[in-house]
């Protein structure tokens, strides 16, 4: 069996050496055992059944709500004039945002040579795929007539019409579908070597066939690895601007309009920062319980949590910066409606949503300035949960407050969600969790090949390829004591 996880804190920094990324000095085989065990155990743990039961029920609720929507039309939602966009698009933006962490970790952190990403990239990419799938539901159903969704695509039809490419909603179609496709390719290509591992370990015939087909005949060939690594780098280079583009395009849905509170130039980078912020929070929400339950502390170490918490803090600060710039410019622009919208957000009928957002996204993450909070899984989990809530409210605040009170006071109106709205939102969380729970029982949740490659046995310091910092020094203790015997 796997080596018992060694609970060491590797988050203290010693600038003279890089801390190890995999703890307990396991060999390759131990990593394989430990990761594959989650999939190979004949029966999943009881907690899995409980979680699966709940999420499957919620998924059922989601499909029931969608059925109701199709039968009765969008009247079952709380939409009205002037708030013609509400829960549906809020949920869409929320889920697409969550889908940003995966590709950020797999692409951007890869380009920045952040080796610790190897322990969490599969996890986050998987989450990305499922989050984008959840997101895709909402634009598909929001017309209430999904059988006409093909109008969105530039395919010749009997009316001789083409979609309007000047509409940001169509850009969305292209951005989200491209993002989904590229993320899927990235995720699958990255998984091929691990699928081969499962194939080679498979005990039953159907598993051999399933993993055999998916592994494409992978045999760890040096020639294949060479091309594989090249393609991985190229995909990372392509996916990096793609990640930025997706939420930028989503932000265009709002920002090209003239509506106060939507039309502002900082929206694209602000949405991207918010997406990464929310995405990392969701990664931590799922990762921390899994890590504790399956005793993965030697792979997903304290340092990993610390780093992710820092990214949440950094992107959260960017989001706070954007809030501040919007507020400042609303006043600075001298446009009375713009100023009104922001005052209305803070003091108007939706002030409760606004202050929930500020509390969750700006106030609470400040505890991550404390090392203790970043390295305590429970504290981090609580912060991540709060950020998840906050990011949903952020989209709600942007969408609903601006629509409910725009230029003409005579056309102001309020939005109240119906029970269908609420159950659709909770149902989508169920679908997301269902897919994730199924995945963890079928596929490797950690990129074994990549984790192994950053271990000392991976040979990164052999030959000419050294100098990335060797990630297997001793574990630095508190530096106060450590540097007493200065070896310089």
């Amino acid at each position, binding site marked *: 069996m796997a080596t018992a996880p060694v609970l060491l804190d590797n988050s203290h920094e010693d600038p003279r050496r890089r801390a190890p990324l995999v703890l307990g000095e396991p060999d390759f085989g131990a990593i394989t055992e430990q990761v594959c065990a989650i999939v190979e155990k004949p029966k999943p743990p009881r907690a899995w059944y409980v979680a699966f039961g709940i999420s499957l029920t919620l998924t059922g609720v989601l499909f029931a709500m969608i059925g109701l929507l199709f039968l009765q039309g969008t009247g079952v939602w709380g939409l009205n004039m002037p708030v013609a966009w509400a829960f549906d698009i809020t949920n869409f933006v929320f889920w697409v945002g969550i889908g940003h962490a995966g590709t950020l970790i797999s692409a951007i952190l890869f380009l920045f040579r952040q080796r610790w990403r190897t322990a969490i990239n599969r996890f986050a990419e998987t989450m990305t795929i499922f989050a984008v799938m959840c997101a895709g539901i909402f634009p598909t159903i929001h017309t209430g007539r999904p059988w006409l969704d093909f109008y969105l695509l530039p395919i010749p039809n009997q009316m001789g019409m083409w979609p309007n490419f000047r509409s940001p909603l169509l850009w969305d179609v292209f951005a989200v579908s491209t993002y989904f496709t590229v993320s899927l390719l990235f995720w699958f290509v990255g998984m091929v070597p691990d699928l081969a591992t499962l194939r080679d370990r498979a005990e039953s015939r159907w598993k051999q066939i399933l993993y055999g087909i998916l592994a494409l005949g992978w045999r760890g060939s040096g020639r294949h690895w060479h091309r594989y690594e090249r393609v991985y780098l190229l995909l990372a280079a392509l996916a990096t601007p793609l990640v930025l583009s997706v939420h930028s395009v989503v932000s*265009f849905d709002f920002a*090209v309009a003239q509506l106060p509170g939507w039309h*502002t130039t900082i929206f694209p*980078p602000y949405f991207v920062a918010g997406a990464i912020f929310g995405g990392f929070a969701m990664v931590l929400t799922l990762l921390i319980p899994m890590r504790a339950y399956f005793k993965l502390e030697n792979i997903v170490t304290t340092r990993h949590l610390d780093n992710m918490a820092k990214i949440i803090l950094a992107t959260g600060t960017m989001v706070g*910066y954007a809030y501040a710039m919007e507020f400042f410019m609303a006043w*600075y622009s001298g446009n009375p409606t713009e100023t009104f919208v922001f005052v209305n957000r803070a003091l108007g009928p939706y002030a409760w949503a606004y202050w929930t957002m500020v509390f969750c996204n700006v106030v609470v993450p400040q505890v991550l*300035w404390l090392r203790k909070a970043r390295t305590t899984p429970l504290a981090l989990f609580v912060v991540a949960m709060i950020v998840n809530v906050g990011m949903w409210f952020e989209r709600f605040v942007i969408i609903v407050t601006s629509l409910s009170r725009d230029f003409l006071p005579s056309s102001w109106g309020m939005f109240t969600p119906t029970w269908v709205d609420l159950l659709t939102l909770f149902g989508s969380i169920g679908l997301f969790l269902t897919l994730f729970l199924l995945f963890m029982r079928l596929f490797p949740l950690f990129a074994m090949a990549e984790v192994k490659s950053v271990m000392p046995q991976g040979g990164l310091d052999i030959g000419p*390829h050294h*100098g990335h910092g060797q990630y297997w020094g001793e574990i630095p203790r508190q530096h106060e004591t450590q540097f007493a015997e*200065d070896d310089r």
Partner: protein
Amino acid sequence: MDTQLPDIFQEKRLLGEAGDTFWRRALAVGLIALAASVALGFAAGDHGRSFFFAYAVSFAYVLSLSLGALFFVVLQHLTRAGWSVVVRRVAEGVAATLPVLALLFVPILIGLHQLYHWSHAEAVAADHLLHGKSPYLNVPFFVVRWVLYAVTWGLTVRAFVGRSLAQDASGAPELSLEMQKRAAPAMLLFGLTLTFASIDLLMSLDAHWFSTIFGVYFFAGSVVGFFALLAVLMLMLQRAGYLRHAVTVEHYHDIGKLLFAFIVFWAYIGFSQYMLYWYANIPEETGWFLRRQTNGWGWVSLLLLFGHFVLPFVALLSRAPKRNRKVLGAVAAWMLVVHWVDLYWIALPELRPQDPLPHLVDLTTAVGLVGVWLASAAFIMRKRSLVAERDPRLAESLGFENA
């Protein structure tokens, strides 16, 4: 380590006499050019407006490069970067000019009325919008803000450059941790001060116009300019015999990658700002861009689109050019020019909406400020090692290779 790393203590790493000659000459050239600029400004007979606009552009230019350097230094500590140790000290030298720039800011204060419409009480009284902005856009608060920026940047320089130099003497690894600890709050302050400094210095030249992304746009350009500058400086220093073995093609490759990345980032921010205003088509927002698309300024805009994005994007796209010192050096030198054009394009349409070509005073002021600024950098560095020679991550940087 199994392979031999260059011995940093064998390297030529003190500017020495060449540095003294350089800063004296650069200072002389700079002062002469600045004197000529003042003379040209008087000769223009427009109450010095053309001089002060030229000065504002070139001051924004050197300021942006120094701030880019400060950003780089702080970022390296924030991310515990290893690869960059051998080039970090040069960036520290560029950032260390920020206190000198506080002195060079004085002419902006002198020319406040020539530069900023909002600084005229009678204009504010007659203009409802300006009146509304006057709690922010007024002379005393403007001065107070710049004092705050200067103090923030000065303290940041001291916290990072000072410790880095102290580490040269002691080699104490604690200093790296101290800098890492200070990097996050320093970054926060940096972001806020840079944003408002760019709003004050450049955006408020047209006090009616506003854009929430403006600070990010200025930031993106600054970092592009800084990485171009870093590549050029390292190439020139190496050609002069400094740090011959410590800085390798691998470091240039990384600088090239970052330059490329920020060129794309700049284009992304520029596009976001332009497209959103173009699409919504609200006159109070489009006027700013209209001035930059008409009367010949459209050509400058296109020069930026192609010169600041398309051409360098194509030139640096693949691996080989980033690893070729000549190509990288040429692209970097070009980026240093178009970064100035970018700032010129932001400022000058407010003075001469009919006339996109730079006047002589624009060029002499640029030469003057860059000369004085480079001289101050060389003067600051004259007794300092050009490399953080006892940084605990130095070996990692010396042996660094792009896999």
